[in-house]
């Protein structure tokens, strides 16, 4: 599967979540917080905490832990509240 994250190639396995693919690639944070600009990535891992928000194919604020990877997916760090 071929995905990109901030323009770089990101390998992924079918059935994985975006959060798992990013973690497997050693990427631990992909968003900064609104007030303090702190880095955030996965925390709860099951769709509860909304820490892992990521832009998926231009749609901001998707939960990386719940979004299954898809071939050709374009991922971007940041988020609409950044």
């Amino acid at each position: 599967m071929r995905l990109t994250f901030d323009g770089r190639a990101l390998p992924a396995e079918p059935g994985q979540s975006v959060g798992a693919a990013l973690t497997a690639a050693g990427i631990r944070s992909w968003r900064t917080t609104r007030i303090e600009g702190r880095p955030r990535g996965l925390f709860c891992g099951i769709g509860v905490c909304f820490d892992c928000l990521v832009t998926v194919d231009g749609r901001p604020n998707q939960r990386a832990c719940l979004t299954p990877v898809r071939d050709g997916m374009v991922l971007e760090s940041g988020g609409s509240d950044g």
Partner: protein
Amino acid sequence: MTRAPDVVVVGAGALGAATAWFATLAGLRVEVVERGQVVSGTTSACEGNLLVSDKEAGPELDLALLSHRTWHEELGEHGHLWELEQKGGLVVASSAQGARGLAELTERQRAAGIDVTVVDADRVAELEPHLRPGLAGAAFYPQDCQVQPMLMAAHLLRLARARGARVRTGTTVTGFLRDGERVVGVRTDRGDLAAGHVVNAAGTWAGELAGLAGVHLPILPRRGFILVTEPLPPTVFHKVYAGEYVASTQSAEEGLQTSTVIEGTPSGTILIGSSRERVGFDRTVALPVLRELARKALALYPSLTDVAVLRSYLGFRPYCPDHLPVIGPDPRAPGLWHAAGHEGAGIGLSVGTAKLLVQAMTGEVPDLDLAPFAPERFAEAS
């Protein structure tokens, strides 16, 4: 034994907090009695509007302008505590007819002392770039402000406590102490409390409280819902509302009315209102109302379609049949005062109300004539 307070204020919302503050400032000994927690009623379920734009010439506008001065002058140094923001209001008209009506309204309002400018259709985007194109016109009200109402009430109570006021939460008033006709204190579920004056600042409960003193006060709840979006970068810069909002605040309709009010907050969320219904104290979340609010908001801001709604909340506006608040001493029960029934404008009008009330209580001539707000103006219920 401590001496009995000069004033017992019933209610620790915006009206009670403002009354406590101005009363302590006037040197009175104050005790606030609240059946719930601080700011637990309508103060915690509203938007914190300080508006002049939705008013026409008359006593409510006079009170709004007095309050406006009070917020900025006497209380100006504390404004940051409650996120006071002079963001300005933008009323938009969708049709040419609406724009003409709005232009006429603004002329009347200007004559009454409101600062307002008509905004041509082609200049609307300069003020609100995300509004849909093609609106017929708008009016800009630079005096419209917003505060975070819970912080406002909680800090005023804190400041009042620093001047000696006492706040008793979890204490329900069950009746009044009387000396003949005169109200000389309250009975509570935690004991009696004597006082020189009792102020009814009990919000939607004010009518019931007045009833305990044997006086009729027709204050009823009018339910409203608000949607709260995810936090966004600045998107809505002013308080933006549709032209029909002014009409709906004055309406006597029982059924559901909605008119769009959209605004950003310092925390990045966008608040989307407003709805009005007379359904008693029904706290059921009404999905059709939420849908209607969303539809109307998107009609003005179509680019918000993918923005997530995180929650909704509902509140009950305490309203009187003539849409004017009740402020001042009650001649039917001497010693009892009212500061209630401000409907959807209670936060904005709270500080002017409190100031007038304390002026009257301490024998000063109030800045405004209290006659239009007189508690005895309503016919007795049969």
